[in-house]
């Protein structure tokens, strides 16, 4: 990475306080954060959800979300205090002097307009260059971002290109008016790892090329390490620490910063078992006429954890749906504990249903918002085990203790719980059925790093105590390393590889596994550069 050490100040934010209105009262989102940025420099803003990093990034433009307001602070951009400008004056800076790249490109493009029109809209507003010049420039930007068919891709509508391509087109859109500053707000969070690498390298090279300053917001340390010259860590709306990227990685000072690293150090010794809890054999499955699983066979050893990894669309969640009976397979069979399972959910016995439970990715939507914790956990106890009244309550409390909560939670509604607590309740609900097999479908991907660690530790503890078998569906390799005994790699509805963790994570790899593993960002700031050199050679 080229460090741009020009000392010309571009942006200086002083003592920023921002309040947000939610649940009928005002909350403090930012409590006096400072930020400086020089021309051509990239600053990484990192923190968990709710840390205020995205609010800070938008505040750098003088923008706040509806329902938020800047209480005090200065935002000096090129000597102008953005906090004092009117809406009308700020509009002359937005999109042209400072541009913004959002997290979800798919939701951030207007579905009704062609991509080219949207790419040049901000530059068009400047009225410096005629439209055809801007279009030519946009095509060149598409080319340098390595978009396929750069000449014509702009004529398409947003729904006609992939997520990774959209994210690059949004970068082109941000670059089109040649801004002095670009705010990247979690631009790769929604992408698969293999796509993320391409987008990251495209963004980095184009920012380098035009020597644009940038603020890069993310919760992923490894990603920010590739992009930023300096890193600032935020927590609860306050600054934790700030340092040059290399210093920060090699020598984090604050406890909190160190804890952000720790998840990746969680490692489980692998074990296997010749006795299979579940075997699926030669499964084909389809949604309507589009076939998504091709001849999938997986064995799940008893009392162990098998991680199914793959990108979105690889068929890993579909496999879970087939196992649970939500999607009957077209071909093949499912053997559960030595007995064949019926493909259809309504033909399975209550006992079979009890023994397989699932925990979903989004705890927010997986629970009935009008039921209390007692009802949520109590229902499967009553339904599967026929336990009622006092005994049932005792059982619920026992489960709550197991997931490291207590009886004070009994009367709470899901809306009164944090994200991590909600996921714990979902785990308790699965355990309430006293199952033999639990399918965890991306259970940690909606959670923050530290909370993730807690959940993973809890799952491991429960496995030791109860001997349950897990199928762990994830796209996150760090999670896989932390929890699995065996790994199944899936790609486009097929199993690429299956085996012990040590075998899969060490060479020799099949091509796809190699690509997948090498795309997972590492904490080394030179990782991306080295990877790209290696791939191009």
């Amino acid at each position, binding site marked *: 990475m080229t460090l741009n050490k020009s000392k010309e100040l571009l942006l200086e934010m002083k003592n920023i306080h921002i309040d947000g209105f939610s649940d009928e009262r005002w909350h403090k989102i930012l409590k006096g954060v400072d930020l400086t940025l020089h021309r051509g420099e990239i600053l990484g803003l990192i923190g968990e959800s709710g840390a205020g990093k995205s609010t800070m990034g*938008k505040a750098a*433009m003088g*923008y706040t*979300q*509806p329902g938020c307001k800047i209480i005090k602070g200065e935002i000096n951009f090129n000597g102008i205090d953005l906090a004092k400008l009117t809406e009308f004056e700020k*509009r*002359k*800076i*937005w*999109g*042209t002097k400072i*541009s*913004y790249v*959002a997290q*979800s490109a798919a*939701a*951030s*493009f*207007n*579905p*009704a*307009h062609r991509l080219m029109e949207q790419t040049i*809209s*901000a530059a068009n*507003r400047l009225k410096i260059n005629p439209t055809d010049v801007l279009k030519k420039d946009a095509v060149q930007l598409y080319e340098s971002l390595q978009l396929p068919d750069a000449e014509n891709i702009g004529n*398409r*509508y947003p*729904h*006609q290109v992939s997520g990774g391509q959209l994210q690059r087109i949004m970068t082109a*859109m941000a670059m089109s008016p040649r801004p002095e500053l670009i705010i990247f707000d979690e631009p790769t969070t929604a992408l698969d790892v293999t796509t993320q690498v391409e987008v990251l390298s495209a963004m980095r090279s184009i920012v380098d090329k035009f020597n644009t300053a940038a603020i890069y917001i993310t919760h992923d340390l490894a990603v920010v390490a590739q992009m930023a010259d300096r890193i600032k860590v935020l927590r609860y709306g306050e600054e934790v620490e700030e340092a040059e990227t290399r210093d920060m990685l090699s020598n984090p000072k604050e406890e909190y910063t160190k804890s952000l690293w720790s998840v990746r150090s969680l490692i489980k010794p692998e074990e296997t078992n010749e006795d299979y809890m579940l075997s699926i054999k030669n499964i084909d499955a389809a949604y309507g006429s589009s076939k998504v699983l091709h001849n999938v066979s997986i064995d799940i050893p008893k009392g162990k954890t098998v991680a199914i990894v793959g990108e979105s669309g690889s068929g890993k969640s579909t496999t879970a749906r087939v196992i649970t009976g939500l999607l009957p397979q077209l071909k093949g069979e499912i053997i559960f504990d030595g007995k064949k399972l019926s493909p259809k959910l309504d033909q399975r016995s209550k006992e079979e249903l009890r023994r397989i439970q699932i925990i979903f990715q989004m705890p927010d939507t997986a629970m009935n918002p009008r039921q209390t914790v007692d009802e949520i956990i109590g229902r499967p106890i009553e339904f599967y085990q026929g336990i009622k009244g006092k005994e049932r309550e005792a059982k619920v409390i026992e489960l709550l203790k197991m997931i490291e909560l207590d009886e004070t939670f009994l009367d709470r509604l899901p809306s009164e719980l944090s994200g991590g607590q909600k996921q714990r309740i979902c785990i308790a609900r699965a355990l309430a059925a006293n199952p033999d097999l639990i399918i965890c479908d991306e259970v940690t991907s909606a959670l923050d790093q530290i909370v993730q660690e807690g959940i993973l530790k809890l799952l491991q503890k429960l496995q030791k105590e109860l001997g349950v078998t897990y199928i762990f569906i994830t796209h996150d390799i760090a999670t896989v390393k932390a929890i699995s005994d065996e790994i199944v790699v899936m790609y486009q509805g097929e199993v690429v590889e299956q085996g012990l963790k040590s075998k899969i994570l060490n060479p020799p790899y099949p091509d796809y596994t190699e690509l997948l593993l090498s795309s997972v960002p590492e904490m080394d700031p030179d990782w991306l550069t080295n990877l790209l050199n290696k791939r191009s050679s």
Partner: protein
Amino acid sequence: MLRLSLGLVTVFAFSVIIFSTFSFLPGDFATEILGQSATKSAVKALRAELGLDKPPVTRYFDWLGNVFQGDFGSSFSGRSKVQGDQGDRSREVVGLIVPRLKNTLFLTGVAAMLAIPLSLILGISAALYRNSYYDRSATGVSLVTVSSPEFFTAYIFILLLATLFPVFPTISNVDEASTLAERFYRTALPVFTLTLITMGHMMRMTRSAIINILSSEYIQMAKLSGASRYEVVVKHALPNAWAPISQVIAINLAYMLIGSVVVEYVFNYQGIGRLMVGSVYNRDLPVVQACALIFASTYVILNLIADLIGIISNPRLLYPK
């Protein structure tokens, strides 16, 4: 194609419902026209002549078969009471309906041309200045107009613009000799009534469709790329709001046509709605059936047009992957 055939099914299901409702009404055309003192044999003779003695199912399919051949039959009323009389004044249903339909279409057409642009402009501007006094008063007033029944609105207009300040006539009688200007003048009050009862709904839905879209991420993105308020609403929100807006317009145009039944009655306007009410009163089945078919098919056609606009305005449907 599927929608089209579904539409046809709807139209005929509607005609079946109308037909069967009729058989539940007390009395038929024969008893209504001959009065209570009629002898049984006279009633029987008339029924036989009109074909009312056949079972309802047979009658329905006879009628249906004729409709397919473009023959809507003759009206019951106006025919000679003596069989074989040369002075049979019974009229073809088509000849009876067409001029009235023209009148109704004129009335609703003018009202639509007033109501649609007005409600779009009001809805968009209310969304643009959301929560301003303008927005609040516009949505408030529209709630009142939506909730008042059309006859009430009609009488208020009569009270204000015909009685207290006699600007417009209360009775909107037009005939073929009336000039266009005269027609506009005479139909002013019913047009205002129809406009007012539909505008509120269309305006509110336009406003909420746009506001709904204003909370999406691409609108925030548009703002952050420096788009002005006007540009955000007209260029970024409106193109994505056409589908819901056109649906609401379709429903309201259909509602307008049906609302014209009441409004025409109040203003004594010679339109299809008034004809239908009169024919129901006389149990004049062929006329009622034809009117019902017209109402049903307008409804279906309007909805088809709205769906079509929804498809054209959405690139996802127009240009598949």
